[in-house]
């Protein structure tokens, strides 16, 4: 099979950091080529170089047999390369049609020829099975539909090579299946696809060949049919990885958290949480699955004390804490979704961030007892293996995984009764993910109640004892993990209703 794209010895530096270190990539015409690697392995950088967003410092790109140099996305698009970014590049207040033709010249330019666009989209829909209402405003679409608009945008420009950057991150399992189906049918019509992911299962499921990157370098390219999850993981991480967190049998104790008919408003004044009730016992991990933006943020903030509920009750160990401030809820540990904005004071030092909740304990007259604080901080850094240049470096200089360890160190060391962990492993590398999940399981084994809010179904299934699904602010079913399966949870996540059996 001929190669449609060859990237040779690509080097891209950002200051002292080498994001791509002599990377090679060869993609064959008509295949789905997986680009696999952990966060920060240089996958997105490589694709941004290809798409003309970044200029490579060294190396060359050969597309369809010709050496090319793209100065901007416009050049890449006109050469026939399309990219669906991880964060969608859509204008929410415009309709689908307007988003599709943005930057494109229709035959009646500068007027917009709606008829022509409609008929072209119709042909594409038939060919690739992508169905979408052209005159719907984008902000009313679901995430899956938004993604279809992005793909349509690329197909509309007659791309030959389509790059998808972590396309499944925001989808429900059912949406993932239909995306994979659409991708396969696109390659049948001659399209070539580069599929960026850090999820091994997906790479195995949908690709023909896989190139693995690690720390900005090529590890190798394998044929999907001839490889295994274990081999890919070893290539990705550089050593053997244990894929499972051992979960000890825990006897559940007394009820720690009880939420009764909770209603919480979002920033726009509408109800984001609508009558949610549940309870968590000592030693139990209660997982809430759901696509982001279905009220998780408001729910966790209400329990943590950052947002006042409009109605309902929150009880901690039987005590009503609904109206108490954050400081009075010091038995709650909070690992927020927004680690840098909510979890840290990024410009303060590692030491100050570790002690953020304990300044009162270290008072010496009018000033703080830094000596004692340093002593304690050193212990914590050791215990939670936070890698930092020094105690006095700003917290913002730490890597994602170490930021999360820092937050865990501060929150878990205060022997909480309840831990709220929201998307606790999002964006972390394999080692970091493993560490965080292990810590949560350990804390539960010690008698903590854990509220785990996550989009990652693997995570929910791996460590939860009970699983609830949140959709549009409502809990759509609570089940024991043993009774739950992906199918059913995915169905509820997408807004399906539980049928009484």
């Amino acid at each position: 099979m001929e190669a449609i794209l060859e990237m040779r010895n690509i080097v891209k530096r950002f200051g002292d950091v080498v994001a791509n270190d002599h990377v090679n990539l060869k993609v064959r015409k008509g295949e789905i080529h997986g680009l696999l690697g952990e966060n920060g392995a240089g996958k997105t950088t490589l694709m941004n170089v290809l798409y003309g967003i970044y200029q490579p410092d060294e190396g060359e790109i050969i597309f369809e047999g010709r050496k090319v140099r793209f100065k901007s996305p416009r050049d890449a698009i006109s050469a026939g390369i399309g990219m669906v970014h991880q964060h969608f590049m859509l204008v929410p207040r415009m309709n689908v049609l307007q988003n599709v033709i943005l930057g494109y010249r229709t035959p009646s330019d500068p007027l917009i020829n709606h008829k022509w666009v409609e008929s072209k989209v119709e042909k594409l829909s038939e060919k690739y099975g992508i169905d979408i209402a052209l005159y719907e405003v984008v902000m009313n679409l679901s995430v899956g539909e938004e993604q279809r608009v992005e793909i349509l945008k690329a197909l509309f420009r007659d791309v030959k090579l389509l790059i998808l950057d972590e396309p499944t991150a925001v989808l429900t399992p059912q949406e993932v299946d239909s995306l994979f189906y659409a991708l396969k049918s696109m390659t049948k019509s001659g399209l070539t696809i580069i599929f960026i992911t850090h999820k091994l299962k997906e790479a195995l499921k949908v690709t023909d060949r896989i190139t693995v990157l690690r720390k900005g370098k090529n590890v190798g390219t394998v044929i999907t049919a001839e490889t295994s999850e274990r081999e890919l993981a070893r290539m990705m991480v550089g050593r053997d990885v244990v894929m499972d967190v051992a979960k000890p049998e825990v006897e559940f104790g007394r009820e720690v958290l009880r939420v009764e008919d909770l209603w919480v408003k979002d920033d726009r004044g509408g109800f984001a949480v609508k009558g949610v009730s549940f309870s968590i016992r000592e030693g139990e991990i209660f997982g809430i699955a759901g696509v982001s933006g279905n009220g998780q943020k408001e729910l966790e903030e209400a329990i943590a004390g950052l947002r006042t509920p409009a109605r309902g009750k929150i009880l901690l160990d039987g005590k009503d804490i609904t109206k108490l401030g954050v400081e009075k809820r010091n038995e709650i540990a909070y690992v927020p979704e927004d680690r840098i904005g909510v979890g840290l004071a990024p410009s303060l030092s590692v030491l100050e961030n570790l002690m953020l909740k304990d300044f009162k304990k270290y008072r010496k007259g009018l000033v703080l007892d830094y000596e004692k604080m340093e002593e304690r901080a050193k212990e914590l850094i050791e215990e939670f293996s936070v890698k930092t240049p020094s105690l006095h470096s700003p917290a913002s200089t730490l890597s994602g995984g170490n930021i999360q360890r820092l937050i865990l160190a501060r929150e878990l060391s205060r022997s909480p009764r309840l831990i709220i962990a929201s998307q606790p492993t999002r964006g972390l590398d394999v080692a970091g993910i493993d560490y965080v999940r292990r810590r949560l399981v350990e804390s539960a084994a010690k008698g903590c109640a854990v509220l785990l809010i996550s989009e990652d179904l693997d995570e929910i299934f791996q460590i939860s004892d009970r699983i609830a699904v949140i959709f549009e602010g409502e809990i759509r079913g609570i089940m024991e993990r043993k009774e739950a399966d992906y199918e059913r949870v995915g169905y509820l996540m997408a807004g399906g209703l539980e049928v009484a059996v």
Partner: protein
Amino acid sequence: MVDAGFIASLLASSIRAGTPLLYATLGETLTERSGILNLGIEGIMITGAFTGFAVSILTGNPWLGVLFAGFAGMALAFIHAFFSITLKANQPITGLMIVLLGLGITGFFGRSYIGEVAVYINPIHIPYLSSLPYVGEILFTHDPLAYIAVILAAVLWFLLFKTRYGLEIIAAGENPEAADSVGVDVDRIRYISTLIGGFLVGIGGAYLSLAYAKLWTEGMTAGRGWICLALVIFSGWMPQRAVLGAYLFGGLDVLSFKLQATGVGISYHLMRMVPYVVTIVVLLFSVIRKRAAFGAPASLGVPYIRGRKQ
């Protein structure tokens, strides 16, 4: 007395007083749609008023005055564009600088023009139509610039909502990153929108000195630039609604004179406050209703830097 004749003359004057506001509001609407917040309208308007007046005296042609007022507005808008688009500076601060610059320069160079007489732009009474009872006076006794303003609103509406250019302007103001990712040159769009916007605001100023007040005095814009900023919000960034908004505010402006002439017992000074009070109310309302709900471009006032997380 308040009778039909009074109302007709009030409405006709509303259009006259509203026309300079309309030019400036249309200009600022275009600028803001592309994502650039130009708070300098007051400074650009006064510069337009002075340039128009001076050029009319020097050349004897008021239309050349209008043209050069537009260019002067463009020049000030260029300063704003350079700072906020190329240098990614803070847009409100740059805008305020433009206000002070415009007021300062025109105060300095304008001193010798105070009390001078220029060649003005005069109303034309459209034959037959202008003699219709009431309607004739309201609609058909204005100068050409007043009619052009309405046509301009229609053109701008068409440009923004019916053409590819409009799509690109709106995308640059809503989500510049998305526009950039499909090959739209965001900086270029923002430059062009800001420059044309400045041109229109400058013409609004020239209308004040050459057609409305027919004189030049220092600081004669008297806060109209700020009113136009509120008008942009009031009209929800829609050119077609700007027409009504501008005439309404024009009406509030002339109401005080008209009522004084009829001897109604309300303090003149209180009446003079009305447009400004309404401006504050509009701004207050828009803050309470939240900008997004009101239709503000999502990236208004945010510099676009490629590759930076927005």
